[in-house]
């Protein structure tokens, strides 16, 4: 226990240090920034203001600044943004505060619904900003949480919401970032080190942006500071989380210990073709999409059917990185594209090379823990939790761990740990999304919950939560768009007459772990599983399908690669 407190207070000190050297000197005017910060970059042509306009509150401007503490480190932080940025950016800020990037309403309402804490996902009820109700803070409640619906807010706050632009998240490789506008518009390197010319900033101290610049040219690496783990984002660059167990900590090619990124090591899978061509996330996900949940692009926004462009070339476009590219046209006449029923299939359902299939998520909150049992699985993609486990895993005594609420910043008793049954990228079950189109499904998630109270009593022992509307277990598969696009689609057999695609799981057999590969329905409003009719159509091919298949594989006329005998 003392060591936990020590480590946490050490962490807090580091955090404070990272937030600017706290010092003050009565004789000095800290408003004369460039006396110390000689060489610092100009923030950008659009913000050509004196330092104090952005870093000193209006009421303090004009006089001498007696302490460095009075200096605002990040004027775009949600707590300050209305004082500093609002006069120029009212429209953006208003929209952003209501957007999913600020409210995180998707994760919140979906998880609360699956754990039985609310009756429906839509319309969103809770969020972290905007007009939604604030996610309840469990710390005020005196009652011991004894059911999933009373644990969900704590789980969300301590395990999920570290990626949230209103507050800082973890400070570790890949995860360094700012808050508010700066969380996207000020670029951080994965090592969190400053690479500019400001003489006052140490070059070996983590937690700094690359340079003191504000930009709208946002590269992939910046988005990945939050969109990591097995979520859309990492898939675009071909990353898939490795397993937690220490036997998967592969040393580098030179035999040295390989570093963790985003709290874990990653598999290098096939990248999205758009990434290979040099496209950034922001080339497709523009301002209105990212900051206002509007004007989303689709594949056909860029890729037009060759037949419609009637010989004229599609227009060139310049990427955010400054490359001139031309989107390839596709043929409506190809075997796959010409199928009538395929008009309702998402491009990604065929063009995805792989997907996130994380089966069976066991989560446990322990208010008293024998850290020894976690010794081999301390690395769970959560650097803070990892530190607590590793500092205590050789300790024969039970400890009372504490961990951070990422939303309020508060430290509370208890530590969340998690593990999977197995994680795969190969299976791609098919379902129907909210627009009625066929899309790849991913489990999100198959929760099994446990809770050990401070006195050591097991209050929840491997409980499967029930959805808030009581309809079924709180396990869901959701349709999504894997960002693992291949220039050519998967073959017919990857869906047709394919039991995994049809939602029948990898193997027959009740009670086996592999039955987790059988999808459970998405939450209401997010789509549905295939109905029996659709499943039958997929599994019992029609004559017209078989002709198409032959055409796709054999062309006309068919030429075998090697003549036989």
């Amino acid at each position, binding site marked *: 226990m003392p060591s936990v407190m020590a480590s946490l207070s050490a962490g807090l000190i580091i955090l404070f240090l990272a937030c600017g050297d706290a010092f003050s000197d009565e004789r000095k005017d800290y408003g004369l920034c460039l006396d110390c910060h000689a060489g610092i970059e100009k923030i950008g042509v659009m913000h050509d203001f004196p330092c104090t306009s952005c870093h000193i509150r209006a009421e303090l401007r004009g006089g001498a600044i007696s302490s460095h503490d009075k200096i605002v480190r990040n004027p775009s932080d949600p707590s300050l943004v209305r004082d500093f940025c609002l006069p120029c950016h009212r429209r953006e800020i208003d929209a952003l505060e209501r957007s999913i990037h600020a409210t995180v309403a998707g994760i919140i309402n979906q998880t609360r619904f699956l754990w039985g804490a609310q009756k429906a996902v839509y319309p969103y009820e809770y969020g972290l900003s905007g007009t939604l109700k604030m996610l309840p803070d469990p710390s005020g409640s005196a009652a011991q949480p004894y059911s999933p619906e009373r644990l969900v807010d704590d789980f969300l706050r301590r395990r999920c919401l570290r990626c949230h632009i209103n507050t800082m998240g973890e400070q570790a490789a890949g995860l360094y970032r700012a808050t508010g506008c700066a969380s996207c518009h000020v670029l951080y390197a994965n090592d969190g080190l400053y690479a500019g010319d400001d003489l006052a900033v140490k070059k070996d101290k983590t937690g700094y942006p690359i340079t003191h610049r504000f930009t709208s040219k946002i590269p992939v690496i910046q988005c990945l500071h939050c969109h990591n783990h097995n979520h859309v984002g990492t898939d675009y660059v071909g990353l898939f989380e490795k397993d937690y167990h220490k036997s998967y900590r592969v040393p580098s090619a030179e035999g040295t210990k390989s570093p963790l990124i985003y709290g874990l090591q990653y598999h290098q899978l096939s990248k999205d073709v758009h990434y290979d061509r040099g496209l950034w996330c922001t080339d497709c996900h523009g301002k209105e999409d990212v900051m206002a949940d509007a004007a989303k692009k689709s594949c056909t926004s860029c890729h037009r059917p060759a037949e419609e462009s009637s010989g004229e070339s599609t227009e060139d476009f310049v990427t955010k990185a400054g490359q001139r590219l031309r989107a390839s046209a596709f043929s409506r006449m190809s075997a796959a594209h010409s199928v009538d029923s395929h008009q309702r299939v998402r491009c990604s359902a065929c063009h995805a090379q792989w997907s996130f299939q994380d089966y069976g998520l066991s989560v446990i909150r322990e208010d008293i823990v024998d850290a020894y049992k976690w010794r081999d699985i301390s690395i769970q993609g959560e650097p803070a939790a990892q530190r607590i486990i590793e500092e205590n895993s050789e300790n024969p005594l039970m400890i009372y761990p504490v961990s951070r609420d990422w939303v309020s910043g508060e430290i509370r008793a208890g530590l969340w740990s998690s593990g999977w049954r197995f994680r795969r990228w190969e299976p791609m079950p098919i379902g129907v999304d909210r627009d009625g189109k066929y899309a790849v499904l991913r489990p999100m998630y198959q929760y*099994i919950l446990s809770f050990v109270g401070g006195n050591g009593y097991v209050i929840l022992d491997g409980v499967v939560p029930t959805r808030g509307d009581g309809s079924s277990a709180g396990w869901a598969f959701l349709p999504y768009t894997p960002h693992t696009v291949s220039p050519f689609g998967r073959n017919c057999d990857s869906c047709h007459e394919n039991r995994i695609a049809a939602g029948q799981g990898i193997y027959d057999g009740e009670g086996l772990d592999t039955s987790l590969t059988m999808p459970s329905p998405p939450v209401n409003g997010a789509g549905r599983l295939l109905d029996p009719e659709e499943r039958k159509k997929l599994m019992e091919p029609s004559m017209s399908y078989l002709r198409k298949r032959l055409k796709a594989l054999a062309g006309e*006329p068919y030429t*075998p690669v090697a003549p036989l005998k």
Partner: protein
Amino acid sequence: MKRLITGLVLALLGAVIIFKEAGLKRPAALVREGCLSCHSSVTDPDPSHPIQAFGCFRCHLGNPYSYDKERAHYGMAQNPGDLRVVEHTCGTEACHPQIISRVKKGLMATNRSILETIQANWPSRASISYGTPAARVADLLSDKPPSNLALDHYRKMCAGCHLWKPRKDYDGEAGLRGGGCSDCHVTQQEISSKDGFNTFRHPEITTRIPSENCIKCHNRSARIGLSYSGRWESEGYGTPYEGAELSSRKLSGNRFYLDLPSDVHFSKASMECVDCHTSVGLMGDGKEYNSISAQVDITCESCHMPMLSRLEEDENLGRRLLRLNRRIPDPAGGKIAFTVKGTPVYNLQEKGGKLIFFRKSDGLPVEVPRGSAEKPHHVMEGHERLSCQSCHSLWIPQCYGCHVSYDESAKQTDWLTGEKTRGRWSEARSLMRFSRPSLGMRASAKVYPVAPCQVFFKSESFSLLTLSAFDPHTTSAKSRQCKDCHGDPKTIGLGEGILTRKEDEWSFRSSFSFNTEETRPDFLFDSFVTLDGKALHGNARDGTRPFNDTELNRILDVNPCLGCHKSYRDPIYKDFSASVRRFREGGDLPCLQ
């Protein structure tokens, strides 16, 4: 005075001697061995070795003429099955002399297959000085053992599972392994001796060997002991949690397992390992083999397409095994099966035209479905080289990327000596899978399920990429479908990814990218071969290899037809080349309409 003292001392001495002698427990009646004066009540290890007839000395040695514990136990063999003493115990002329010479040449005692494999590629690659190779475990136990880097790896990472290893030298599962004959033939029941000083429950000897005796060793590497009962060593999450603990589905070494479909022989009939595996396959036939496939003599056909023959009165081995088993009925002039090496499979008998299999553990009869050589799917032209396993194995444990590090400065326990010596090995893995098996060509020129062995030796920067062909023991009555082989890139060795036809050419895009940081710049974990037939894995000692370009093309040529022509009986397969010609020439074929 002096005399008095001497007298007193002598008298005292006499009294002590008389008292001690009187105190010694002596048998009431005459017995042959002194052992039984203390161990007066010992249960029989089994009906073939009754203590009344055998006594103790014959097996356990020591000094049977002494009534003193120290002297009586001098030179005693607590475990007569230990290969170091077995010539004087189990293997004496009157008992089992041939068997112990076979066992000592068998793979479980020599580990020859492991030793040859591990030493095959290292000498030319490793810069650390390479000494003389060893052929068998016994070489390493000699006074001047051969020594090289690969052997150091063997000693520290592999040498915990062989018959020379003494029993009970470690806690847990490791302590159950080893012990010569006893390794397999002594059941693992708790020795509940001490109810009263004299009662001793003798460990039970049996030929009805319970599978737990096999699985205590056969749960790593190919992991067939686990797969057979539907257990797969998981990625180690220990989920779902039970109370405040991790899952109780535990294996030794803080490993965990998941439940997968089990082998049909297990799910249908709860067959034990020895129900199939014969004495010759397990203990050897007197020849020293260097691969498991050469020593094992049971095959699927031994039971499902058996060579049946009458068990003659003078057929020694079959009769003896039957008598030892005591659960299986005598075929009484009926026919039994024999393996390819001629070992009697006495528990498979023909009765009234039916094939009846009897479980060795309890004699329960089970009717065996007769494999039909004449069924079209078993005689199809082009499928001559398929092993049963290639279609009937549902899954295979696969371990991708074995990253071996060697730290010269640290120490690690040598399993053979029990001492910590210089140099520590550690292994990390990239990923594990249980998915459908890839297929390749086994040395015997049979199509077989294969699993990769991908060693990346970090300290020496070399890698060894081989394929290992083995029966995964995940037999399914229902076979895999045609398309599982004739169109699935994973199965034919290309790896997971997209296999499609583009501009009349097959095209493949792997789900992996190159990862120079972790492996090497030209390596994708599950790509054993490229589409044009370039082998990326190979040089296995037994010649197991991925398919070559001719084979790949022939496999894929069938793919377009498989949408409609799914049946083995389909006439287009009678002469497939002719069918392809007809198709190419077009005409009035229904598929071209």
